[in-house]
């Protein structure tokens, strides 16, 4: 069971962040189904979405158990409103073109992979168990995304231009992933989660190498312009995602599917 010196609510909130990041990015990714630029991409994007929904289910199940109020993973996904969601803003942004989608996948997965890798050594065995399952899939997603970022960045003039535009657009959102608040600090103190500064160092290395190889220029702008998602202050996009995602559960309360 979880470290007893940690406030239950804090752990719950932190688990929600993991679950919500996976759910919302999974949702965005799933919007591509049937609309990808090549058959292989359609398959890979569906696969990514599937993995992410699987991760959110594991994190939500643990979160619900920690909360101890009898809620289920589905309750957490379908019956919270936007201000109760704790994902970073980066994952809720619209997909844009496939370049922007892949750039986000790369920027997020470089973080996600390093975070999950660190979490496999968590002092909480349930956390490390989930992380161990998820990290393999995320490693694959990261490989694929960074490979595509390189190939498209160093492809045609147009593909280069689009990838640079995607990077410039997304950059002011990436800083939120590393911005530790009291919740992150408490988890790090308890040895359940790593320090986000450590994750950032590793992320910087991955990103810097990949952008170089992709012939893309690191934007000259603060990366932490758009923050607050982890505290429930989102962009205007999240409300629309939830209205769509939650429709059936909201319209037919208590029904089984």
């Amino acid at each position, binding site marked *: 069971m979880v470290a007893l010196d940690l406030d239950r609510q804090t752990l719950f909130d932190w688990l929600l962040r993991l679950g919500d990041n996976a759910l919302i990015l999974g949702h965005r990714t799933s919007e591509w189904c*049937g609309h*990808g*630029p090549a*058959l292989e991409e359609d398959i890979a994007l569906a696969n990514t979405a599937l993995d992410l929904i699987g991760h959110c289910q594991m994190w939500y199940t643990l979160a619900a158990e920690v909360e101890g109020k009898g809620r289920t993973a*589905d309750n957490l996904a379908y019956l919270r409103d936007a201000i109760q969601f704790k994902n970073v803003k980066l994952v809720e942004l619209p997909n844009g073109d496939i370049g922007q989608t892949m750039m986000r996948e790369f920027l997020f997965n470089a973080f996600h992979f390093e975070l999950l890798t660190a979490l496999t050594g968590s002092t909480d065995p349930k956390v490390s168990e989930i992380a161990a399952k998820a990290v393999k899939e995320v490693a694959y997603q990261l490989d694929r995304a960074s490979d595509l970022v390189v*190939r498209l960045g160093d492809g045609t003039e147009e593909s*280069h231009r689009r990838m640079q535009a995607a990077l410039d657009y997304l950059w002011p959102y990436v800083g939120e992933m590393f911005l530790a608040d009291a919740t992150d600090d408490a988890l790090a103190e308890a040895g359940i989660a790593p320090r986000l500064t450590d994750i950032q160092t590793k992320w910087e290395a991955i990103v810097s190498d990949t952008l170089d190889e992709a012939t893309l220029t690191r934007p000259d702008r603060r990366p932490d312009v758009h923050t607050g998602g982890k505290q429930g202050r989102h962009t205007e996009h999240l409300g629309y995602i939830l209205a769509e995602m939650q429709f059936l559960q909201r319209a037919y309360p208590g029904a089984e599917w």
Partner: protein
Amino acid sequence: PELLAAFQARIDRGERIEPKEWMPEGYRKTLIRQIGQHAHSEIVGQLPEGNWITRAPTLERKQILLAKVQDEAGHGLYLYSACETLGISRDELFDRLHSGAMKYSSIFNYPTLTWADMGAVGWLVDGAAIMNQVPLQRTSYGPYARAMVRICKEESFHQRQGYTIMMKMAQGTPEQKAMAQDALNRFWYPSLMMFGPSDKDSVHSAQNMAWKIKINTNDELRQRFVNETVPQARYLGLEVPDENLTWNEDKQGWDFSEPDWSEFFAVLKGDGPCNEERLGARRKAWDDGEWFRDGLTAYAEKQAARRKAHAAE
């Protein structure tokens, strides 16, 4: 003509025809049309179900649906590969789809309007597809037959998942049951149409059956589908929307109403509820993806040039 006779004899003996072997032009063309149409159907078929992924009512249902749509893209991939063995490229097949020169199954021109449609599509549409495809595992063209083996296995899994959704809905709240009945009402006749018009009206059937590209007549398969499906509907407590449905003791099968073939032909020529949207979505995906595909090609060429330059040093 001697070649032709030898070819027919091989088929009659139950041998498989493989890609590099001699085959009549008509056989090749018919196969390209049939396999290509099947491949296109898998790809376009992602769209009506894809329509509910973001709105799936539970995380588990969302995963199952995602996995299913992913399988369909996978089926498209095998089938395009099988088709490529006949000497046509995937891009050329896409061009023919986008220009309207090749068709996809008309069933995908119907909209998915409630969650129960995810059940109905799995149960009825995949059910009808399997009925068509199971015999094709014994088709004379090797790559096609092998693709069918793999596809049939997954499709029957999909059909069971669809039936499970229908079961949940039919046993659920009154609103859910109403959705299930409405889905059956909307998908019943379009599913019957999936087997095509009566073979009496088809000129190609005899030749295709001799070549073992077609194994059963459309009417045989349709009857088999009705016989299997009616008891399943009754088990669900749903009513098949056909007041002429009666058990025929003599043929040990159900008598049923023909679908409205004028609707079938209208949908085929482009007047179905979603023809423009489905084809439009596929065209848009292709056009929007052009820069992406070009980018990958350019990178591959650069890399090849770099390797060459490096080797020359």
